[in-house]
């Protein structure tokens, strides 16, 4: 199962409100792999995440996204979720009046396409909550309503655990977390990692990668992946910042403007 290609992105260009944000992204993720996508603010990291999930505000203007060999360009977000894609949102919205337990149950049913036995659901919920160190009361609260930053991120990873995706895209799951919460969330993600799962970790900082170890690190800048490497690339960033890499690629980028799109 490992090595099987999950996600193959080629020449992806994406616009938001008429403005081109991604300028030709290429990325391949196989099962069992963890890819970190790093980059300074405004480089297009969240745009990539939302476009992969099919957010209606993000318009794909070119290129191709294959998921398990299928072109998913025309699929609505729910269809993508049903095929096994999961996005942990950077800023998940609240759904007043809907309890976490009801939400998770319905989501699990929707993703599976069939009813889930109560017992199975309950066991999975309790086990995943335990993993993320949230108490049972958490399931009775309304979705993200009044959640702290840390609770929101735990709730996202809890959803990931319940929905059991093949590809998890995590959009700045580390932002807004103190060091203890970061460790808990990261340990949760590690515990959910299986040979069938591919992970795309989107992060601004290297610190998350101390807990979740990627095999591949990519630098996204001005809507393109300008450099890819192993974990050492993240360490180099930690050390020197983005400037040396950006400087190195500046001439290339200048020459490439307008080439795609």
């Amino acid at each position, binding site marked *: 199962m490992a090595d099987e290609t999950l996600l193959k992105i080629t020449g992806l260009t994406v616009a938001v409100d008429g403005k081109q944000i991604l300028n030709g992204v290429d990325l391949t993720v196989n099962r069992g792999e963890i890819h970190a996508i790093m980059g300074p603010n405004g480089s297009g990291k969240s745009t990539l995440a939302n476009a992969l*999930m*099919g*957010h*209606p*505000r993000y318009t794909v203007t070119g290129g191709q996204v294959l998921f398990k060999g299928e072109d998913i360009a025309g699929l*609505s*977000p*729910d269809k*993508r*979720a*049903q095929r096994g894609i*999961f*996005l942990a*949102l950077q800023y*998940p*919205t609240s*759904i*007043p*009046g*809907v309890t976490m337990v009801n*939400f998770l149950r*319905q*989501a699990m049913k*929707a*993703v599976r396409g069939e009813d889930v036995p109560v017992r199975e659901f309950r066991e999975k919920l309790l086990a995943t909550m335990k993993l993320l160190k949230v108490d049972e009361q958490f399931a009775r609260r*309304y*979705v993200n309503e009044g959640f702290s930053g840390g609770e929101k991120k735990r709730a996202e990873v809890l*959803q990931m655990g319940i*929905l059991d995706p093949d590809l998890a895209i995590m959009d700045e799951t580390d932002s807004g977390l103190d060091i203890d919460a970061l460790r808990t969330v990261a340990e949760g993600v590690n515990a959910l990692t299986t040979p069938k799962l591919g992970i795309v970790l989107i992060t601004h900082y290297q610190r998350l990668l101390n807990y979740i170890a990627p095999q591949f690190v990519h630098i996204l800048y001005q809507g393109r992946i300008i450099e890819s490497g192993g974990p050492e690339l993240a360490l180099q960033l930690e050390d020197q910042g983005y400037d040396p890499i950006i400087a190195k690629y500046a001439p290339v980028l200048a020459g490439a403007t307008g080439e795609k799109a």
Partner: protein
Amino acid sequence: MVAKITPEIAAQDGYKFGFNDNDNATYTYRTEKGLSEAVVREISAAKKEDEWMRNFRLRSYQHFLQKPMPTGFWGGSIQNYDLDFNDIYYYARASDRPEQDWADVPEYIKDTFDKLGIPEAEKKSLIAGVGAQYDSEVVYHSIREDLEKLGVIFTDMDSAVRDYPDMVKQYFGTIIPPADNKFAALNSAVWSGGSFVYVPAGVKVDIPLQAYFRINKENMGQFERTLIIAEEGSYVHYVEGCTAPTYSTDALHSAVVEIIVKKNARVRYTTIQNWSTNVYNLVTKRAAAYEGAVMEWVDGNLGSKLTMKYPSVYLMEPHAHGEILSLAMASSGQHQDAGAKIVHAAPDTTSTIISKSVAKGSGRTSYRGALKVYPGAVRSKATVRCDALLLDPESRSDTYPLMDIEEEQVNIGHEASVSKVGEDQLFYLQSRGLSEVDATKMIVNGFVEPIVKELPMEYAVELNRLIELQMEGAVG
């Protein structure tokens, strides 16, 4: 001009109560179409009423003629609709008396109530008593024996006039006088059916009493009259449901409900109104709460073409508490002009109003609230919260909160919000596998949750189901 809702349109809308049984219906008595003094006399004669009630009707009819269409506090702009008082049947009787055994109810009427699940709920002991009204008359009435032994009375209003004349005379028309408004006057003139509930001091009725109102005949007017008296320290929960067949012509429902909640008693009155979209629903509901008493209205409006209904609580003595939970849903062609009215007439009285409304398509919801505090009602506390949810750009919601506070030493809070189902909320739920329709349903169900959680379980399930039916086809 409002477009007529045809059965085809209604069927698309998923209204499952739109069937009629005209092929079988036989009426043992009915008045001619239209309203006149002769019709009022005829109704009274058909019921073999005493002179006092006949005179009450005739006086009320004069008030009806003199009163203009409601304006001012009443909303909904009834004058913009083509409601024709002369195109309505005011009285039609399909059964000569209320039966206490479903086996004695005419077969086709029993079938109707079977389809609505009423005898089933009774069998399962989900309710302590049932009243079922078919057009003008109550066709079935029963109450649990042990409650009857405790002195609880739950019967149809016509029987009460005959069997408990002193009690009826003492309270009937005292909370809502015939001259209160045009529709209260109309009801007082032509009323028929409805419930009479009496709960003796200290008696607590543990599970709800249920009344079910069904309009069957085309162009029918239903004018039931309900009176509830809760003696000191007693408790009762009364639940009513309403449906009608879908016709291309209009029907009129204009009820009057009066409630007296005595010292330290508590009454909860729950309505799930699901009239078909050819019904004008113009109802006056009011309660008087005395010392330490609690009155709660839980008012769910899903159906009808136009509803104008503002359940009221008059807090007459110290420490009385009034609570109104209002839920309205308007789909295309519907206007729910619903709300609440609270009057603080004594010190240390408290009240809460929570209103939630959802509009979709060309549907329109209005919250119309009135809060009155009389001088001397010191330390009164009132909270009003109304939230509206719009499902698409065509739907509309308005808020008309009226406040008349004549006492300084009070604590009044008011909050209102209008929100739209957001793109981000939809995306979030869709990214978890829910279709756009299911995501919208979930958002709406969450929005109305604060009201639904106040309902008994079976009704909460039913209401959620009705909301989901209305939501089908809301998007896409």
